[in-house]
């Protein structure tokens, strides 16, 4: 099941809210969340519920083992077993085919490529449980004694299939002791509606143009068309993923959880390093806290550490070399920035830094998009074949003008308009009530327009879904 679907909006969510708030008993509430979460997950792929529950059980046990045998070898065993099992699951289900293929290429062997179906959300929940085991080991958080509560943490439908990667330590208190407040529920609703709008009205529309241009035969495109397609993809992936995170965070608020922000207007970044502090923040911080810093951070062999982190970041996105290259593409720029570039950029007007950042990030998406290297090269070639004589065509003008207002809106929506508006009403006008009341109307309009788009449309892809 996905959030941006009619069944979720009109059946699943209202029923979930109704049942949850029909009881005051915390255990009942947790159980309801678990049941709904398992149903949500099972709706997409019933067969993989078992794997997810297994992963939760493994780390529940490991967590308790680590705590019980703290200070002895037992704790280490608990940690290592958690890492091995989780990474093992990931390696098997997500990377086995990729690994075998490369072994074959490297050693000239011809092993059969294993073909495992990729369970939804495995990249998210394995990382969540790994972070739990490590945090328990580091004594940053107490092991969860109730399997029910732990299962709720792992399976919670808000963030299970598409993030953010919620750290146990961030919501440990809330798992045990939630305080659902009316103000939070209200905020959550508004947040959810915005996320839904981003996904259905912006991302899904961009996706149509992406399919039209980026899936076409590259040699048939005008140069302008290739760029239009790529920019549309940059729009699609941001609004898709951040929209989904918005909905996850909003849903969390509706039930008393406070997940951390996952996006902070990444396209306003002033450097590549800055971009990665704004994009998919939960992933960046995961790699920072669990890989970069343990490796030594910026204290020893910084560039090697950065290389490893970006190699892994790229690889997390998909079992294909283009994702790894995409990660390493950022490694190059981040390394340059750390070496000297950031200092240089600070001396220039902000506009230049910003322009530089977008110049690196937007074209970078082409590496992310194509898993087939031939198609990748063909498309890159098209992007830069300015001398080909096929720069623009009538169809492009038509596409652009037909989406012009929408496009302008999308660009503005990349900027912190919402926050600036809110701050304006709160601090300058000192009348926050106007903003809050307007929000109610905006929510209804969002739902109305999104329902219209969703009815009868089966074209509702989510890019980060296969992660």
């Amino acid at each position, binding site marked *: 099941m996905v959030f941006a679907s009619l*069944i979720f909006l009109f059946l699943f969510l209202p029923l979930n*809210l109704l049942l949850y708030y029909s009881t005051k008993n915390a255990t009942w509430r947790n159980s309801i969340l678990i049941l709904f979460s398992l149903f949500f997950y099972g709706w997409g792929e019933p067969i993989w519920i078992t794997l997810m529950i297994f992963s939760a059980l493994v780390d529940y046990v490991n967590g308790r083992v680590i705590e019980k045998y703290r200070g002895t070898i037992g704790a280490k065993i608990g940690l290592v077993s958690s890492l091995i099992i989780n990474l093992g699951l990931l390696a098997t289900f997500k990377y086995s085919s990729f690994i075998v293929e490369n072994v074959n290429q490297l050693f000239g062997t011809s092993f059969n490529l294993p073909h495992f179906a990729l369970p939804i959300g495995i990249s998210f929940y394995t990382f969540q449980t790994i972070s739990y085991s490590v945090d328990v080991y580091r004594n940053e958080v107490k092991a969860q004694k109730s399997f029910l509560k732990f299962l709720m943490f792992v399976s919670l439908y808000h963030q299970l299939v598409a993030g953010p990667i919620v750290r146990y330590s961030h919501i440990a208190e809330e798992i045990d002791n939630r305080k659902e407040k009316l103000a939070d529920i209200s905020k959550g609703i508004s947040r959810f509606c915005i996320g839904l709008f981003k996904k259905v009205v912006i991302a899904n529309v961009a996706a149509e143009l992406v399919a039209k241009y980026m899936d076409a035969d590259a040699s048939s495109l005008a140069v302008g068309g290739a760029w239009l397609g790529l920019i549309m993809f940059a729009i699609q992936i941001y609004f898709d993923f951040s929209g989904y995170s918005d909905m996850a965070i909003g849903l969390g608020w509706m039930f008393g959880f406070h997940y951390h922000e996952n996006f902070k207007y990444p396209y306003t970044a002033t450097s590549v390093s800055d971009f990665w502090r704004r994009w998919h923040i939960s992933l960046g911080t995961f790699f920072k806290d669990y890989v970069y810093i343990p490796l030594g951070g910026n204290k020893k062999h910084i560039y090697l550490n950065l290389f490893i982190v970006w190699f892994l970041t790229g690889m997390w996105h998909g079992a294909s070399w283009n994702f790894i290259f995409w990660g390493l593409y950022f490694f190059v720029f981040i390394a340059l920035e750390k070496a000297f570039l950031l200092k240089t950029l600070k001396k220039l007007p902000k506009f230049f830094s910003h322009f530089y950042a977008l110049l690196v990030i937007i074209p970078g998406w082409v590496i992310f998009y194509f898993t087939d290297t031939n198609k990748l090269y063909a498309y890159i070639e098209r992007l830069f074949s300015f001398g080909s004589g096929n720069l623009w065509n009538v169809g492009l003008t038509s596409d652009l003008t037909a989406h012009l207002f929408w496009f302008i809106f999308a660009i503005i929506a990349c900027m912190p308009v919402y926050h600036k508006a809110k701050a304006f009403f709160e601090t300058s006008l000192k009348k926050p009530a106007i903003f809050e009341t307007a929000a109610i109307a905006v929510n209804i309009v969002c739902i109305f327009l999104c329902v219209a788009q969703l009815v009868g*449309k089966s074209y509702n892809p989510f890019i980060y879904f296969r992660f």
Partner: protein
Amino acid sequence: MTKTENTINIINVTVFTLVLGIGGLASLSMKKQAVSEIENRQLTPFPAYSDSALWNGNYFRQVDQYYADNFPLRNRWINVSGSFRNKFGFESGDIKIYEPANDAEANEITDTTKNTVNSGPLPDDGAVGEVKKRLFVFKNRAFEMFGGSTAMGKSYANVINSYNRLGIPGLQVYNLIIPVALEFELTEKYKKLQKPNRPAIESIYNELDSTIKKVWAIDEIRKHREEYIYFNTDHHWTSLGAYYAYRAFCETAGLTPVSLDTVRYKVKSTFLGSLYRLTRDPKLKENPDSVKYYLFRDSVRFYIGSSNSLTYWGKSKMYGEGANGSNSYSVFLQGDLPIVKMETQHNNGRKIAIVKESYGNAFAPFLVNNYEKIIVVDQRYYTGDFVAMLKKEGINELLFINNIFAAHTPFHIEKIKRLKK
């Protein structure tokens, strides 16, 4: 928190829960339809349960589709969505290009239950299985843009050849490929938007066996490009367009075409066809089509056959006069039935079978002026023993008539190939 803030929060939560809750209740209690008129397809039914469908996720996927397809006030929502989309930008110049994002029609490929004969004509679904086509709306007409590959055309030609080489004694094979409307409307400005049709047709005809007779309908049609030969809002040709193809066919087949001056006709007005459905462009809505169909003097005995029997033939009428609105094209031959037969009083021994998709429907009726027997087989739906049927009915002429898209679409080429079993 202040009292005002608290009130606002209460209102926000209440409104949200009411909207979702009422929507949910409405969706569960309102009556479900089976067919969507404006989308011209059958709406997804509630899936039958099976363990395998449950485990591989198909069951729930279909429930999702079912829910979306049967959502209350569906048509109103679709209209809102269309109007909303139109506000995303504006039109530059005269044209607006559409890329239909949702090929929902293509999902109907597996629906072969059209053997059931009911009182009204079946919805026309001529777009089934065709390559996703780019459309453009120019002034107040919609056009499909052709872009098929030469290799695919050759594939099509090979399949036609295989029928020629079946060794059925005395069987004369014909091929007639129908161009798209845009072929005759191109100004220099828009020429690059599609691949020229004639060279593509020529390429196919060059691949065909020399004993196959090729019909140059495109040349005959071109002479009449100023006339109402294609619909403005639908991807089909009008019966007039089909008539000119019929004239070209007669020339190739050595027949005398009937003259339209002497034929009575009837008209179905306000037809908004497939291209309107796909684009929902307001300009098309203001320029609806009319479907003219000719009432020939010949006494035609029209029968609907079955894929499952070579001997079953149920009496019916050549025109489905109950068709109207967006279904109007189904007036021809009662829509897309797997196999129909027409017998006339012309005892000249000429018996022809036509293999077609929906374009052939407007064409076939003209043949009652020249043939003793006409069998019309829809390549998408007929699953019977085609060759046995040809032999049983004593067919001595076989015409493959396809629009240029179908001739370049793997789906259609496969279907034609599989008729042979």
